[in-house]
């Protein structure tokens, strides 16, 4: 007969608030196989865990059930507690009487009855649990960093400095990401390129870092410690070794295209380098717009290149590489403003987004750093900044706050004043959010020393009038409607994930929220981990954030990755599939349904009526299997079972839950 111990947690008032703990303890004692039932205010506390350990020893318990919060929260905690008493951790089962019971059912009588039923179900599962043991899996001690922005670069540098090899894969022709587009950074007004380019150079010259720019990840297989990734290294049509970066080719190239790096404010050539400090400083040919690839005419770049580096026959390369950990740092995009007709964005050159403003004031930007009105190349005098364009807007935009716009707009007012002391900045805002270090002080400087007028209210409409832009807004504090004749209107558009975020999420089985930001394992306690073991997040791809946070997350992810790479082997999760060879008929249907190709064919010999007969059966590679259980349902004779969620356990749970 089993000797099961049931431990019921009050969880302060979270459970005890609506569940009659005494009654549950009383009822638990009546369940067959239960030798001990007790309760404590905080089972997950030090005292609670010691109580479990001591009771296991005193009562000679062989199974443990803890009725408390969700197993997703504290199953590891209680399994460790049992292990400290010498009990195999997989003999511990939890009953979720908090998230699935006390918190969602207000009537005490109903909540208590359900709690007892959930305890009975957990006891049934515990009574059918068997000892399970982890296995050691070899670790590929290399890391992959996806995305070459500041977050990706920082993560790669941290991992490489710790002595492990890193492949940094970047989709665009150069690393640097969004930060490379910025002129200054808040709150210190550091020149963005000055603090970024050294890191870019470190990354490109670091012996442990391999740069894969103009490359994308096509396929990811495997699991923590053993990822197999296929990388498509797109053809640059320029030989990286021979190219000296002299720039003759993009001088002479005849076809012009809107430059993505300059947000379309100016044009680039079909063969181009996004910006002068690009790393690697090797141009790429944009196949869609190159006359040779489109109309089989031209090849000017090839003729003018003295280093004979242009190679128009280059092919994409598909590389297959193995990694132990992956850091995702794919960054963000700016929200498209088609839905916001009232701003007339796109209908007048002087109505621009903050990122375009950043390019206009940037020395390597389209106007060489001189802030000029795109319409008439004149210096602007009245500049209106509109905040929360598409942010905090649940009807046409994104419900969340994009976090960094208040600060970069304050920075823009300072930059504007610096360039044109006679100019005037008007900022329409709902709330100014300055939650970081020196942020509030920086904002006050913008208001007090740079004469920026902050108008508390949204802009109703912006429309061209003559060569000015008439802005109609409101100052809700004074209760006055406001009209401003502006030379330039800068829209602080919302921050959104990259358009290909859903594909990347599918590639790495990452969860995403309703807006396609990647979902972290736990918002408070595991902000850089994900539910895919071995895959970590850094930067704006996980949610709106500024550079310091992105860099901090990058180092956080790097340390998590190093937690894996620093080990020779990893302990595998023992809850994986297992074949009972006496039942297996060898139909091998399980091989077809296994997403991880963890099952293979094996020939065994059996004595049948004294004669040795050879037979084919399935065999599970426990290191590769992730325990999803698809094979166990495809297996008609019931030969395939999943340890930890076995047929016996689930049947016992179904029987108990229906009592």
């Amino acid at each position, binding site marked *: 007969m089993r000797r099961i111990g049931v431990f019921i947690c009050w969880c302060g008032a979270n459970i005890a608030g609506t569940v009659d703990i005494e009654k549950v303890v009383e009822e638990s004692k009546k369940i067959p196989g239960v030798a001990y039932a007790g309760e404590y205010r905080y089972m997950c506390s030090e005292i609670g865990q010691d109580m479990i350990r001591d009771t296991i020893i005193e009562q000679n318990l062989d199974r443990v059930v803890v009725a408390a919060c969700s197993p997703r929260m504290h199953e590891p905690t209680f399994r460790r507690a049992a292990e400290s008493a010498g009990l195999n951790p997989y003999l511990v089962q939890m009953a979720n009487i908090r998230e699935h019971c006390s918190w969602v059912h207000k009537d005490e009588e109903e909540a208590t*009855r359900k709690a007892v039923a959930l305890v009975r179900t957990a006891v049934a599962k515990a009574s059918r649990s068997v000892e399970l043991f982890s296995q050691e899996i070899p670790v590929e001690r290399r890391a992959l960093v996806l995305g070459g922005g500041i977050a990706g670069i920082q993560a790669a540098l941290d991992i490489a400095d710790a002595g492990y090899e890193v492949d940094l894969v970047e989709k665009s022709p150069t690393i640097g990401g969004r930060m490379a587009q910025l002129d200054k950074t808040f709150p210190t007004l550091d020149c963005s390129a000055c603090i970024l380019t050294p890191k870019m150079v470190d990354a490109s010259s670091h012996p442990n870092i391999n740069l894969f720019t103009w490359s994308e990840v096509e396929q990811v297989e495997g699991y923590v410690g053993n990822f197999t990734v296929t990388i498509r290294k797109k053809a640059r049509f320029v030989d990286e070794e021979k190219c000296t970066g002299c720039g003759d080719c993009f001088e002479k190239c005849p076809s012009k295209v809107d430059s993505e790096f300059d947000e379309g404010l100016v044009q680039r050539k079909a063969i181009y380098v996004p910006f002068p400090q690009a790393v690697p400083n090797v141009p790429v040919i944009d196949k869609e717009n190159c006359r040779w690839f489109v109309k089989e005419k031209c090849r000017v770049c090839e003729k003018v290149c003295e280093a004979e580096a242009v190679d128009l026959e280059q092919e994409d390369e598909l590389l297959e590489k193995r990694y132990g950990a992956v850091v995702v740092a794919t960054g963000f995009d700016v929200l498209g403003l088609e839905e916001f007709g009232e701003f007339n964005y796109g209908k007048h050159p002087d109505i621009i987004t903050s990122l375009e403003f950043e390019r206009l004031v940037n020395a390597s930007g389209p106007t060489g750093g001189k802030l000029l009105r795109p319409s008439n190349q004149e210096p602007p005098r009245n500049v209106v900044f509109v905040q929360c364009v598409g942010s905090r807007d649940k009807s046409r935009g994104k419900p969340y706050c994009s976090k960094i716009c208040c600060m970069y707009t304050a920075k823009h007012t300072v930059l504007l004043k610096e360039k044109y002391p006679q100019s005037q900045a008007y900022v329409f805002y709902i709330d100014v959010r300055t939650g970081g270090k020196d942020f509030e002080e920086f904002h006050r400087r913008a208001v007090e020393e740079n004469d920026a007028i902050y108008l508390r209210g949204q802009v109703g409409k912006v429309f061209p009038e003559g060569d000015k832009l008439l802005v109609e807004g409101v100052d809700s504090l004074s209760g006055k409607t406001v009209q401003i004749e502006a030379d330039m209107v800068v829209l602080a558009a919302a921050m959104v994930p990259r358009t290909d975020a859903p594909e990347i999420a599918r590639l790495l089985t990452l969860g995403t929220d309703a807006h396609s930001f990647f979902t972290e394992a736990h918002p408070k306690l595991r902000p850089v981990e994900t539910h895919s073991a071995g895959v970590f997040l850094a930067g704006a791809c996980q949610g709106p954030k500024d550079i310091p946070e992105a860099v901090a997350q990058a180092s956080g992810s790097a340390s998590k990755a190093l937690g894996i790479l620093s080990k020779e082997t990893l302990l595998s999760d023992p809850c994986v599939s297992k074949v009972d060879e006496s039942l297996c008929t060898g139909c091998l249907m399980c091989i077809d349904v296994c997403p991880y190709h963890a099952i293979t064919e094996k020939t065994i010999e059996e004595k049948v009526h004294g004669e040795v007969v050879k037979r084919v059966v399935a065999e599970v590679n426990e290191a590769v299997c992730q*325990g999803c259980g698809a094979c*166990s349902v495809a297996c008609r004779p019931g030969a395939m079972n*999943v340890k930890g969620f076995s047929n016996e356990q689930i049947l016992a749970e179904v029987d108990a839950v*229906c009592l």
Partner: protein
Amino acid sequence: MSVAREEHNFEPLIVAFCCNWCSYAGGDLAGTSRMSYPPNARVIRVPCSSRVSPNFILRAFQRGADGVLVAGCHPGDCHYITGNYHARRRLSILRRFLGFMGVEPERFEVHWISASEGGKFAEVMTEMPEKIRALGPNRKLRDAR
């Protein structure tokens, strides 16, 4: 208890198989957000919706469940990549076959609930008992016990 009276205050029992990565986490989120829903459903945690075998579903009906719910990740978001694709085919065929056997399809539901859809979890947990209360207790596949 006479059938009529039992019909009157009949509280349907629903067995809910929830996948650990999405729908079970959605249930946790409904809890942490303090949403409230009727207590008819009792959740059994499984690694993936593809772990739920028709045997378990029939076993639940046999032991007296009035309704069975299988909840998993949205197709394409499965933590095990293809798990819910197989489950979608398998359980669609089963749902129609149970209908052919005379079991009302409303008694067996499948919903895709992601970890961030606490509201949808609470909604399913509220609507399903209503539908089944209208159908009355399940006597069809119930064993003699």
